[in-house]
């Protein structure tokens, strides 16, 4: 059964068609890279999936819950790491996590243990009492990832999560999220960087608001390196 299902999704900004007929579905335990050049419609798709924008056309279901008809149940199953940082820099890591937990209606009983476990998974446990303003970019991203998993979502959406990170932090985050997919999470990772996509990953290519390719990366590209295939098809710099 599909954990994330998108059917005939369309959206326009005034006269400009941003997305048209976008359809795909992803099961549990899969890592799906959503690749597209700048302006392809990735951010619009993320805004629709997180209900920051409401789609006038099409359907989105998260863990079997229709986002339009049952937004609470759908959003409760969705973890999000936004491209733009969403941390309160003046608060500590733990205060940020507690704030998020309350926004998702998590019970206070046992919450600290849950936060500790989530931070520990990302080797951030010792940072719990630090103010976020004192963390470097890589640690902030890890913290945001830990936070997105706090309510144990079934679908994890990451919107260009490695922007601004150094090579080591990028590699660590990419590796960790692949591990999460192996453990059963349905992951949708948006990016415009082809080197973040592995040959065995599922690949969705978004171009000019439409799905250009949908399949396993190695099946889509064959022997051609992904970067060359991507540039050839989209005519964009990756």
């Amino acid at each position, binding site marked *: 059964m599909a954990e994330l299902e998108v059917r005939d999704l369309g959206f326009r*900004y*005034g006269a*400009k068609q*941003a997305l048209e007929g976008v359809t795909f579905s992803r099961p549990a335990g899969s890592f799906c890279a959503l690749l597209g050049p700048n302006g392809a419609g990735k*951010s*619009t798709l993320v*805004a629709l999936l*997180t*209900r*920051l*924008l409401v789609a006038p056309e099409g359907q989105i279901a998260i863990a079997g819950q229709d986002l339009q008809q049952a*937004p*609470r*149940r*759908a*959003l*409760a199953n*969705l973890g*999000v790491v*936004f491209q*733009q*940082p*969403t*941390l*309160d820099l*003046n*608060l500590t890591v733990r*205060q940020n996590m*507690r*704030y*998020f*937990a*309350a*926004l*998702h*209606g*998590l*019970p*206070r009983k046992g919450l600290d243990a849950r936060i500790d476990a989530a931070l520990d998974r990302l080797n951030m446990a010792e940072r719990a009492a630090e103010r976020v303003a004192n963390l470097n970019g890589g640690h902030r991203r890890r913290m945001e990832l830990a936070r997105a998993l706090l309510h144990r979502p079934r679908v994890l959406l990451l919107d260009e999560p490695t922007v601004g990170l150094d090579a080591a932090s990028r590699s660590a985050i990419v590796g960790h999220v692949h591990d999460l997919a192996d453990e059963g999470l349905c992951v949708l990772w948006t990016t415009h960087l082809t080197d973040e996509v592995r040959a065995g990953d599922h690949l969705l290519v978004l171009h000019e608001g439409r799905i250009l390719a949908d399949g396993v990366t190695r099946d889509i590209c064959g022997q051609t390196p992904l970067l060359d295939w991507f540039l050839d098809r989209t005519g964009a710099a990756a």
Partner: protein
Amino acid sequence: MTGYWGVARAIMGREFLRFVHQRERFLAALVRPLVWLLVFAAGFRAALGLSIIPPYQTYITYETYIMPGLCAMVLLFNGMQSSLSLVYDREMGSMRLLLTSPFPRWWLLFCRLFGATLISVLQVYAFLAIAALFDITMPLWGYVAVLPGLVLGGLMLGALGLVLSSFITQLENFAGVMNFVIFPMFFLSSALYPLWKMAESSALLRDICAFNPFTHVVELIRFLLYLQVNWIALGWVLGTTVVLAAVAIRAYDPSRALMQRKG
């Protein structure tokens, strides 16, 4: 439902922590009305004669007259500050986090509004306490009776801030709010001079002042401080709060910035 209460507590707690971290904001909120009270009022008292008007039963000093207006001024500036921080949150991304909560959007916005109002009310009490040190005091029970009026006035002005924030797309545009909202609202009200005094110079100005909802916040506070209820002011403030809150919740579109950037 415990989840709803938990969300309320978290959002209000965050507002409080944010306030604690911005000591300059607290100082500014106190210094502004104190300057009016201790400097401007000293000069104005000679220029303005006051007659005995309700709720006062005797001649009062000008400092006593402007106290309710200055309390409302604290609420007004905080309402606008809250609007500024909403625009900031939207630009900084933390609004996205709030709005992807599974709880209804109206509840999230109401908690935000109520939290900001409580912070405003705290500042008003701090101002009243400092004024009392300078011997400008109200009836003792007036300090208690005024609480619901402060909360209601704070909600009204906070809702106004929320409405404004839904139309302000960028932080830079905020200066316009100061010129076109805060100053006219404050000066065209009964905060600094009674309406009858205004009528002496212009009937039209008096009518504008009487129509200004901020005047009614001031009068509601003024009467409550003297343990009376100004029902007309209460009706105005309640009505305006309901209308503004409805407009705010309907008009508040977190994606506006996103839409405008793309459009």
